[in-house]
């Protein structure tokens, strides 16, 4: 009886956590891990902090969620530039606060070009998606915010223009834009746009910490929500092909979905039918999977597909998403990060869009200490098996004073892929950049120095970003594939590449958002292990299938979508 009373007590708090017990850790594999990460952010010139709420207390949920970042080659010089979003402060925006845009100097340093690029903006930014919505050859930016979202058109001369209104993307009301992703859902060659909205919030009516049961955590008064606050609504905008968009949320069946607290959005083909589906990580509510029905409409199948809840049917605090082919089956699996006292989840895809929660089987349930955010399925040591990486950080700075077990700043986590969907958490084996504690949120994966490994850009709340350089010491090979669409959208978003090497076969897809509110380097990175050559199979969004045999390893290969007749 008493046990039941205690279990009941676990339920009421603003954010769900299953009070999951960590799985016992198995014996360490003892295998060396050759990637080592060093934070060179400061030395690289990434000096501006991501202001987001007060430092030592957060009275409102809007101060806690944070924002994302992106790798983008805005000037097409072959070197990845960086965008780091920022928030504000309830007491007033500190001087110098803005989203920050850094141009790559090609020597592991960056120059802040925010003002020059026309991207100075202070507000409560959330997420970013990158894609060439007008197919003019230059990647554009869409940024969600609390308030009005922003569409920046890349002018191709190093500057951007805010075209939100001209594009028909002005909202009539104040919304809290959350995840966002460009995608070509109708495969007409023009990038459409999906936007999740987190919840309905306004400062005037927001309750203070401790006001009700949704405003406490472990008995400590904290900012309220998300539970108890009205849900956000998600929106789909169709690209009209003339620089404008039309909202098709209702017609496309998006509004039929169970409402929830939507966060990161990923558009990818989960059921291998050649059409992009949409997955939305949802906080404290069932995550959503919109299956593309090939006729301009979607059906929400999260519960049916097994990708909405934990395997015991509980909602989880879905925040970040890593998407990749962890078993090398040619299917896209989903790794989703959650709150503390819960496991993150790994959903294995059977190729038909049905998922199996493999968290425990895969060895991921050993870690439940941290609030997880940005995540990636990325081959960090180029051994040919994609690993799992995620950043962490608590949302309640007040709590650690009362309960030291829940610090506000926490480390980055790597689970190395041992093969066969088995993972092992690395403990102090991946360098100081991993062990360092921050309250991180978004992160993006890319190769800023073009040296053939994956580096990581990380947003840290109220601190400058981290830029983790991967000092990989290994003879493993790699291959980067940069796709340029012609009949398909020029950014090739939605293109699938299957890379075969050493008897392995790995699928990756060009996506415009993943991790947490962030956008990765669009060049698909394949670690090849000892292979010196690889075969590529490219499925373009236009429907074209292209194959390339015996491609040499250790190069950045740009592939332009061929005309049909040339195949």
């Amino acid at each position, binding site marked *: *009886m*008493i*046990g039941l*009373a*205690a279990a*009941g*007590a*676990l*339920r*009421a*708090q603003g954010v769900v956590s299953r*009070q999951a*017990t*960590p*799985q*016992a850790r*198995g014996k360490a594999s003892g295998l060396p891990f050759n990637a080592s990460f060093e934070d060179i952010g400061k030395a690289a010139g990434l000096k501006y902090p991501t202001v987001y709420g007060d430092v030592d207390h957060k009275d409102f949920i809007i101060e806690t969620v944070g924002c994302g970042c992106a790798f983008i080659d805005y000037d097409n010089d072959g070197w990845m530039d960086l965008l780091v979003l920022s928030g504000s402060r309830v007491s007033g925006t500190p001087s110098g606060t803005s989203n920050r845009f850094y141009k790559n100097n090609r020597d592991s340093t960056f120059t802040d070009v925010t003002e020059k690029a026309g991207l100075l903006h202070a507000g409560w930014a959330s997420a970013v998606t990158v894609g060439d919505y007008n197919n003019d050859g230059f990647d554009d930016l869409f940024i969600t915010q609390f308030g009005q979202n922003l569409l920046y058109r890349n002018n191709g001369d190093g500057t951007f223009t805010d075209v939100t209104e001209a594009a028909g993307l002005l909202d009539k009301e104040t919304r809290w834009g959350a995840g966002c992703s460009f995608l070509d859902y109708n495969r007409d060659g023009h990038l459409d746009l999906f936007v999740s909205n987190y919840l309905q919030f306004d400062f005037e009516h927001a309750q203070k910490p*401790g*006001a*009700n*049961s*949704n*405003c*406490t955590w*472990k*008995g400590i008064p904290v900012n309220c929500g998300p*539970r*108890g606050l009205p849900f956000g609504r998600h929106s789909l905008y169709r690209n009209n092909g003339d620089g404008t968009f039309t909202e098709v949320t209702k017609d496309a069946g998006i509004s039929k979905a*169970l409402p929830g607290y939507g966060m990161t959005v990923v558009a990818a083909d989960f059921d291998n039918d050649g059409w992009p589906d949409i997955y939305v990580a949802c906080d404290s*509510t*069932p995550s959503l999977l919109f299956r593309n029905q090939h006729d301009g409409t979607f059906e929400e199948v999260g*519960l*049916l*597909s*097994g990708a909405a*809840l934990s*395997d*015991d*049917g*509980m*909602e989880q605090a879905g925040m970040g998403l890593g998407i990749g082919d962890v078993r090398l089956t040619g299917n896209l699996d989903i790794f989703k990060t959650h709150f503390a006292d819960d496991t993150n989840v790994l959903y294995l895809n059977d190729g038909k869009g*049905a998922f*199996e929660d493999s968290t*425990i*089987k895969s*060895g991921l349930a050993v870690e439940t200490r941290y609030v997880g955010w940005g995540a990636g399925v990325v081959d960090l040591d180029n051994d040919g098996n994609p690993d799992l990486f995620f950043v962490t950080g608590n949302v309640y700075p007040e709590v650690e004073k*009362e*309960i030291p*077990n*829940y610090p506000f700043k926490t480390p980055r986590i790597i689970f190395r892929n041992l093969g066969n969907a088995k993972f092992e958490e690395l403990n102090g084996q991946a360098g100081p950049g991993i062990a360092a504690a921050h309250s991180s949120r978004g992160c993006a994966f890319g190769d800023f120095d073009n040296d053939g490994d994956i580096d990581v850009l990380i947003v840290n709340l109220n601190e400058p970003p981290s830029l983790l350089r991967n000092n990989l010491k290994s003879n493993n090979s790699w291959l980067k594939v940069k796709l340029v669409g012609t009949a398909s959208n020029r950014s090739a978003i939605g293109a699938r590449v299957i890379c075969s090497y050493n008897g392995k076969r790995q699928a990756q897809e060009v996506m415009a958002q993943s991790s947490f509110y962030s956008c990765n380097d669009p060049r698909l990175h394949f670690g090849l292990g000892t292979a010196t050559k690889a075969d590529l199979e490219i499925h373009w969004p236009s429907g074209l299938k292209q194959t390339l045999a015996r491609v040499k390893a250790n190069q950045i290969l740009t592939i332009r979508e061929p005309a049909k007749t040339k195949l």
Partner: protein
Amino acid sequence: MSSIFLVRFLRLILISTLISPVITPSKPSDPEAQRALDQVESLLKDDSANPRLLAARGIALGRLGRGPEGLRSLEQALAISPKFLPALEGAAEIGYRDHVPKAALFLKRVLELDPDNAAAHAMSGSLAFEKSDCAGANAHFSRAEKMIANDSLVMAQWGECLIASNQSASGAERLRTSLALRPNEKVQYDLALALHLAGKDSEAIEAAAKLRVDSDSENLRGSIYASQNRVPEAIAAFRKAAELDPQNEQNYVDLVSVCLDHQSFDVAKDIVNAGIANLPDSAALYTLRGAIAAQTSDVEQSAADFERARRLQPDRSYGDLGLSLLLRQQDQIDSAIAVIRPRLKKSPDDATLNFLLADLLLRKSEDPGKRSEHEARKHLTKAITLEPDLAKAHAALGKLLFQSGEQEPALKELKRALELDGTDRVALNQYVLVLRKLNRNEEARAAARQLQEVLAADRKSEVEKNRFRVVRLPAQ
């Protein structure tokens, strides 16, 4: 709600001693019976083995209040003619009235010969009630409905048993009938309880308003208010119950439960401490304080309280269960298992302990097919054998079977879990996945819709629950 059930069972025991239904009362000065006895005695002198005469003498003696003698005579008649119905009826009546253990046997034999005998059913129902066999009581009472309709005490018994059989709405009807025949404080309480359990809380409040103020009635009022989410009234009622009977630990437990439901750990702790001050040997209260400490990550205090509870009441599972849950929370699965194993050794037929150990073993298991998983399956199977209606065990076993690739057996277990508890999320979610795996897509869609409804209902209920936070009042 635990207090409600406790009170209900206490009342079942208490009320059974007050009831004396349907049987003809004995009258030591009954002239008619005396005349009959005299005549029969005379006739028996010439025909001492006549079962009819022996039976008549027994019945007359019984009417005159000379039960043991009457029963002896009736048994003599039955020894000669075992199926002589009047003798059996007389023996049953005297046996029932005088609380003779053989009464149930006589009634059984009557009903074998005369299955529609309403009086025998009425008496059998009461005997079953006294033995806490409510299923039996309900079956018998329903076959004597007309006969007992004007008997307030038997109707009260029936009402009690219907409540205990989760038929509270029907129970409330019988209790209302009983009260209309004869007002009674205890039956009034039971009516309020039945209405509350039947979800008719407005009527329950009305019924409870007629009760005199004591700890039990305040506790019941608190429970009704709590289920209506009238948190301030619930708190006030539970507080009053504790004031009126500070030695009743259940009052503190219920009060704390409301606080915990609303994440008010500080107030919950104050209440438990007040309870412990009054009841320093209450294992339940120490366990509760340990659970609160665990929620606020005060591991040391939590472990100390669970240990104290274990020492105070070593024959109960409170402390051990709490300690194992704490250890589980602290990532010490092996230690949690070590706490449960000896407890299970002492009580191998405890379904909850079997389930709990299985749950821990599954958490420990790193890989399907490992030994701990086999053992978990064994304990889940045993838990189900011991308690076939344990939905959670069916759900866990179904999940385990599915993970092991045994889809059809998994489906069977999950289906059973859902029959027992259609809102069990583990079972529902796994059920969707198994059906999908078996390509039974339409059924999977239907189950997914059911899951969506459960999620929506849970969400609504949580919104209601979270409207209040219990706060600590400043010291006066």
